């Protein structure tokens, strides 16, 4: 059994625990009522999407420096996981926005930034899929990831200046203990599951890349051209 399965199992158990706590035990939110429970999955998803995107950025730099298939596979894994979490984030955000703001989409900076981040990362996955040469694919994915990641705060700021209409999420410090617990549990649950998914994707990426280059047989007594 691959080692990362322990993380997957831990994440799954935590997610079950956090869900039960968040959905059944924690009291309804003061203003949003039961709809506020969406935050117990939404906020951990958001944290981890950003966290794993940051990991992708760091891995992209590493991949440019190291030029090794393993770094590229790790980058592929974190990119795919970020894209998945971003899609979840958008759907949760839209569902949360409907009862809260009355519309599914309100050009809120965070939601819009997530959408743009999702499209950027999906674009990188599409770029990967259209390249055959593994070295070029690795370099270009890494370059694209660095640029897309650096762009995230720029997009966020620009949309914030462009239109400020956001109702801030409650932060764990200002809500009561019963609300902090499911947030924390689910944050770790999503982190573990995110890592598990990234590692699985990285393994898949390596496996689909095909057999590793066999080491070239070096002759003990090489023929040296040009001496004659």
């Amino acid at each position, binding site marked *: 059994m691959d080692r990362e399965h322990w993380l997957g199992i831990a994440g799954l158990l935590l997610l079950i625990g956090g869900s039960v706590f968040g959905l059944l035990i924690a009291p309804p939110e003061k203003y949003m009522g039961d709809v506020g429970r969406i935050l117990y999955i939404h906020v951990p998803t958001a944290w981890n999407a950003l966290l794993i995107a940051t990991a992708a950025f760091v891995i992209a730099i590493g991949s440019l420096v190291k030029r090794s298939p393993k770094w590229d596979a790790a980058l592929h894994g974190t990119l795919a996981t970020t894209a998945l979490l971003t899609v979840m984030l958008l759907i949760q955000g839209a569902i949360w926005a409907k009862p809260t703001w009355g519309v599914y989409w309100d050009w809120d900076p965070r939601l819009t930034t997530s959408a743009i981040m999702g499209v950027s990362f999906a674009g990188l996955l599409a770029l990967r899929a259209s390249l055959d040469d593994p070295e070029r694919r690795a370099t270009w994915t890494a370059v694209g990831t660095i640029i897309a990641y650096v762009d995230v705060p720029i997009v966020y700021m620009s949309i914030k200046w462009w239109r400020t209409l956001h109702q801030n999420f409650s932060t764990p410090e200002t809500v009561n203990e019963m609300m902090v617990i499911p947030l924390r549990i689910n944050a770790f649950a999503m982190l573990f599951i995110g890592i598990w998914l990234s590692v699985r994707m990285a393994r898949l990426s390596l496996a689909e890349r095909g*057999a590793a280059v066999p080491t070239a047989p070096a002759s003990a007594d090489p023929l040296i*051209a040009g*001496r*004659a």
Partner: protein
Amino acid sequence: MSTSPPAVAASALGRAYRDRWALADVYIELAPGRSLLLAGPNGAGKTTLLRLLATAIRPTTGTLSIHGLDARKDPVEARRRLALLSHRGHLYSELSALQNLSTAAAISGREGDLLGLLDRVGLHARAHDAVRTLSAGMRKRLAFARLLLQEPDVVLLDEPYGQLDPAGFGLVDRLIGELQDEGRTLVLSTHLVERGAGILQSGMVLVDGRVTWVGPASGTPAAMAEIA
């Protein structure tokens, strides 16, 4: 033996594409002013070797130094001393022959009698015509002029006789002779083994990405006959 470093020193040079070695375990040690003939059937790795020597592609294994400069650490300096005549023309088809030359001259910071260069390769009359209107043979001549412009210490020629008419053959022979007289180092690949053997010093036969024979150029036709 002189104490100056070899013009071309390759050690265990190899390049893999996916799980296939296009070239592996190549050793070259070419003193300044010497010349090397590359022979071998189609797909043997001659072009890959020349592109590796030209720093157009990165080696998967091994080291390359040009006049003592590590080609990997200091590619810009290495490129100052070498030039490649490639299958690919490296020409802008919209620009005129002269404009192609003047662009290359300006970017590499060289000055010279560009019209004189075109005269040397027999293209003087077409200097102001767009490259797109030139025949394949004329483009080859123009590519040759571009190489001469760079005054390379190490001259890399990939199939210099390709696409040329008999007059072109004579021109290439003459130019190669001049380059040798000027003390430049030559690496040349050609299917016209007899022709190459007549004007070069050392020889090397590649089959399937491996070096199968090295020796004096005069022995190359016999070595090629053996593998045929």
